[in-house]
């Protein structure tokens, strides 16, 4: 988090055609209630449009929500785009229905943490606060 900004800025994004957005919206609301500035992109986002949101909003955190089984392709592509565009410092989180072995692979490509179904929002908040504080 940059020194002059007092609030952590988060983008919650839904890639591709997956419409399951209950989790994305609940997490967005919990992070907002925890004092963060949250932008929810809505569904039907492409990797490029998600990158644009991250850069435009100068976000500290990107939370990607996927329940359609396409998490690997999208996360790998977005992770590459973040690196290529100097945004590799953004804390990249993935949430949704993610099998354990895929979670390993996601971490290997630069995803900071993967949050599965039933994760308490408090856990996500603590994780973000620990990661973003480190950057100050």
């Amino acid at each position, binding site marked *: 988090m940059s020194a002059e900004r007092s609030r952590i800025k988060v983008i919650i994004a839904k890639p591709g055609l997956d419409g399951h957005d209950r989790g*994305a*919206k609940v997490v967005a609301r919990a992070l907002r209630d925890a004092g963060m500035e949250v932008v929810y992109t*809505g*569904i039907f986002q*492409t990797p490029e449009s998600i990158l644009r949101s991250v850069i435009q909003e100068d976000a500290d955190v990107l939370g990607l929500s996927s329940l359609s089984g396409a998490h690997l392709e999208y996360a790998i592509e977005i992770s590459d785009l973040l690196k290529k565009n100097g945004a590799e410092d953004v804390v990249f989180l993935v949430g949704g229905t993610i099998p354990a072995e895929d979670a390993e692979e996601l971490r290997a490509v630069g995803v900071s943490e993967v949050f599965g179904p*039933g994760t308490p929002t408090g856990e996500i908040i603590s994780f973000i606060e620990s990661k973003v504080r480190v950057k100050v």
Partner: protein
Amino acid sequence: MADLTTGLTDAEVEAWRNGRLAKDYERIPPRAKEFTTLSGLPIKDVYTSADLADIDEKADIALPGEYPYTRGVHASMHRGRPWTIRQVAGFGQAEDTNGRYKYLLAHGETGLSTDFDLPTLLGYDSDHPIYGREVGKIGVAVDTVVDAHALFEGIPLEEVSTSLTINAPAGVLMAMYRVVGDERGIAGNLLTGTTQNDILKEYTAQNEFIFPPEASVELVVDTMEYCAEVMPRFNPVSMSGYHVREAGCTAAQEVGLTIAGALCYLELGVERGIDPDKIAPRVSFFWDVHNDFFEEIAKLRAARRLWARLMKERLKCKDQRSWLMRAHCQTAGVSLTAQQPLNNIARTAVQALAAVLGGTQSLHTNSFDEAFAIPSEEAIKVAVRTQQILLAETGAGDVVDPLAGSYYVETLTKQIEDEALALIERLDAMGGMVQAVITGYANQLIADSAWEQQVKIESKERTIVGVNDFVDDDYSIGGIELHKPIPGVQERQVARLNQVKRERSQRDVAEALTAIEKAAPNLKTNLMPLIETAVRARATGGEICDVLRGQWGEHSPSTVF
């Protein structure tokens, strides 16, 4: 309700509450400060005949198969015809899903149900440059009627009914089904099944919309009229409470929003001069069956009663078939946990029992591995066997509406009916469901209920076993292998798409698409005969939807949370 009166007076009940019950609580205090249903309805410690003072057995409960159908749409219910075991399935190419269908039928399934992949659901072909990666992932890819032929190869469509979980492009898939039947020599009046085709709940919950709501609801009316003419035993619409409930609303909101949606389509039909008795009998329903056992049973009973009353009194339907709420139920996907996933078998079994006792016509039981992936064959088998155990071993289907007359269930039934009707009246006052979508009212209603439930879970006011209590690190799925996406599906699907495009008459396709383009601006023109012509000519779903996108535009996703 004279025949249920036990003779207890209010004073006697009050004396018991202040005496014996209070004494019990002194010794062992109640487990919670207040008890509520999963949807938040307050629950008293005990219910008596006094709670039924406003309920009239003849008018409100009646007998099974008789108005207002509180006790079921058929007189004999599951004693005669058991509910249909209908597991939704779909992945990969049509051949892959066809194989799963045959597996399910071999294990005692009695009806088919199709999940399509996201590109198909959103009206894109499998060669889409961005969305092509989602081909065959969470459902089956169907680009043209050639795929639809492969999907149902070897399945006797004149004997097995098929549900198609498709909404924005429902007209296209419905036409494909009709054309498959026709090209196989099966008459339209022998085809039975359902398209989900309830577009309103896409804007509020499931998010598989393409066009703006005003045009989309008219397309639904087109399909209702088309079906009544060419496939009279096919249900064009499955009014879906399932998705709004999964997205977070309460049981009563599920009933209210869903019935309000059905009224919207039917009243638009009436505006076009269609006799409601021509289309209402083929409106079917699809409910979520969640964890609160009695509330879910009451919800199904309340929904049937409210629908019958509205069809008779508000739409003035005279055909008794118009009053019947025939329903498919699915256990609550949202209740499945990734933690200790074998526990999901118990959850699903209890939910399925509620669906049976609530009088469902058809049932999908979720598989225990679905918090990770679409189900594996092993997990599906447990789900199917759960239904078979309910029917064969528990006696749950052996008596019709066994919970009628329960002081508690009848009270809940009335509460849910009253609350759902009040919501329908609020929606009417704001101009109906289309307006509730455009203004974001319905989306906010659902998001607020979802948030309230999350707060209850996080504060542990609501316990979820394995998630916020009895927690351990067990994510074991009993040694089975999760379903994995099939490699190479997109390449093979695109190859077939290209082959179909090479072999078809380009002129016929172009003419058919132009005809749709010309007719689309007048929303009251029935597009279905034109869509059928295009499908027959091997036009793709993407091509047909692109023409409609050009005329109607697209609906922008909501960013409200």
